[in-house]
């Protein structure tokens, strides 16, 4: 478990040493990079390892984000009666509180951790459902189905209930019959639009959150207005511990007999099946594992300061960003995905003065990669593999580079 320990120390250093010394804006960038790494590495497990071209990764990100957001948002409301953060030092509590009185890990952090796991599990379940078509569809067809999945998630989020987000409503409005306790001004309540049977007129009634069963409000996540007000637990510590675990899991997987089974599907599905690889099972597994980590990353995303979780999170543009990272890094290369995640996250910031060129530069980069390195920067290799450096040395080498697209069976 040494690598995990290293990840833990690394994450703690990021939060406690690096963050205070680089300023808020760079810290936010470093945080975005960490989330991007988790997303890119998780997509590598499907697109890179098994060669199934999924284009709906942001769908898992959004589903995980919303699921995790629901847990902390409504959980906080139940547990503490508010929606503030209740974390410790590692989740970067607001500075207003004297750090000396804070624990390293607060109660809220445990709720947050549980929320991340829930986000991952819900996404994994969806990954299972999305993985099923991959058993019958290949190449472009699967790409279209997964693309559709992301769009379905986006539209469904848009259709969720926007009006019933809890608002603080005056006591009298909520409990007209009860005397107001001293010191209580408002009650966190849901607004319900009802039709009065007598007058046939619509009117709004308020119901206290504490009186409303959880399953009645789970779909109340802001609709097209976005899911705002989620407590902001995400810190560099949490981001980099998740990134470390994702990278760690991906490596262990790649180096195991299961990883070879995944890769064999990408290389030649017919041969893999003939050699005893249950290709159906592994393709679905790849989707499930990949979706799990994307869901956890979504949980981090949802709890990030300054992020508005909205239906667009599931949109194609976001999926496209992640695909670019994986393709740029090299299909199947974990270190390649990490490097590309950094580049693709930093690049727009570096080009901040000319944002309108961002997509053009993306497109150009992709075209150049397709022409000169059809397998991405590193192919299936890792940055430290000898093969990579051998190739660099005999620069412009006459490698056959025959693109063996994932679409040919």
């Amino acid at each position: 478990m040494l690598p995990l320990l290293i990840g833990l120390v690394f994450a703690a250093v990021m939060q406690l040493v690096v963050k205070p010394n680089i300023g808020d804006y760079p810290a936010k960038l470093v945080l975005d990079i960490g989330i991007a790494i988790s997303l890119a590495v998780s997509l590598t497990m499907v697109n890179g390892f098994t060669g199934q071209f999924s284009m709906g990764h942001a769908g898992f990100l959004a589903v995980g984000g919303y699921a995790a957001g629901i847990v902390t948002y409504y959980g906080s409301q139940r547990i503490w009666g508010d929606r503030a953060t209740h974390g410790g030092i590692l989740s970067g509590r607001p500075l207003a509180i004297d750090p000396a009185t804070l624990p390293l890990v607060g109660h809220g952090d445990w709720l947050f951790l549980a929320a991340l796991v829930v986000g991952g599990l819900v996404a994994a379940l969806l990954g299972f459902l999305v993985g099923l078509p991959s058993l019958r569809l290949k190449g472009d067809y699967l790409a279209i189905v997964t693309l559709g999945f992301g769009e379905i998630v986006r539209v469904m989020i848009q259709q969720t209930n926007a009006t019933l987000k809890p608002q603080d409503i005056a006591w009298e409005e909520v409990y007209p019959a009860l005397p107001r306790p001293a010191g209580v001004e408002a009650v966190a309540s849901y607004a319900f639009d009802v039709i009065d049977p007598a007058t046939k007129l619509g009117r709004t009634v308020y119901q206290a959150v504490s009186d409303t069963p959880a399953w009645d409000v789970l779909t109340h996540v802001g609709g097209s207005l976005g899911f705002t007000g989620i407590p902001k637990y995400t810190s560099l510590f949490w981001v980099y511990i998740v990134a470390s675990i994702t990278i760690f899991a991906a490596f262990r997987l790649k180096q195991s007999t299961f990883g070879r089974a995944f890769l064999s599907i990408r290389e030649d599905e017919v041969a893999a099946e003939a050699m005893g690889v249950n290709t159906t099972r592994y393709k679905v597994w790849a989707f499930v594992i990949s979706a799990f980590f994307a869901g956890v990353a979504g949980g981090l995303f949802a709890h990030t300061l300054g992020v508005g979780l909205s239906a667009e999170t599931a949109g194609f543009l976001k999926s496209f960003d992640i695909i670019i990272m994986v393709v740029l890094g090299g299909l199947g290369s974990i270190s390649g995905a990490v490097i590309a995640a950094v580049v693709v996250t930093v690049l727009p910031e570096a080009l901040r003065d000319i944002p309108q060129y961002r997509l053009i530069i993306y497109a150009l980069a992709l075209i150049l990669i397709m022409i000169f390195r059809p397998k991405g920067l590193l192919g299936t290799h890792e940055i430290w593999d000898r093969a990579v450096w051998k190739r660099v040395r005999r620069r412009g080498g006459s490698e056959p580079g025959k693109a063996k697209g994932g679409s040919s069976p």
Partner: protein
Amino acid sequence: MTSSGRRSDVLRVQSISKSFGGLKAVQDFSLTLCEGDLKGLIGPNGAGKTTVFNLLTGVYKPDSGAISLSDAEVAGLRPNQICRQGMARTFQNIRLFGELPVLDNVRLGTHVRAHQTLLGAAMRSPFSVGEERAMTARARDLLAFFGLEGRAEEQARNLPYGDQRKLEIARALATSPKVLLLDEPAAGMNSGEKVALRDLIRRVQTTFGVTILLIEHDMGLVMDICQRITVIDYGVTIAEGPPEAIQNDPKVIEAYLGAPDEPSVEQGVARA
């Protein structure tokens, strides 16, 4: 030479058929392999030999008929299940995992016999680590057997053609098969390589105790190493017997030569 009465049947194929649209690719094909057999399956181009392999290994489902491997019915199972039951193959048009190292191609073959779990692998449990080590050792042994140990780290697609054919056999053997199906292993080899391959196939059989069904266009090779030969043409079995009988069978000669005045079987094959 030996009577097959004492040995048990490993593979029993009972009149399997397969049509593609109107084309009857294989009709009423039957075959029995006893333990330790080395049988040849020959026929002109397009006769249906590869289709027989595809039917046996589950790539296609037979329209009718039965296939039993060690007394278990396998017709209708998926290829990976049939492989698990003990049947492995090579491909006529080489299908290696080209981007993967040679070693990993063979290690993948051992996957079907692995017992570790995904979680165990992620946690590097002692069992998983031990099994992984055993798989690697077995793969290296197999590579050494085929003289490929020096190329273990190379990408499979960079191997010369003959070595790729050998690697396919090594990968198939890694699945610990009872029955090994070889689809034209000598294709594309020069005569020197073919001689080496002949000895190699014999050594594979004695070392690994596998039963072999061999598709091959090189008559010299087939006649030399196979104990019995089945000949098919247009999907129909036209002859079955020991090499000497096959060579003189008028139906076989006609199938290969078409017109009776062409000189020899070998030339007929060269045409193909």
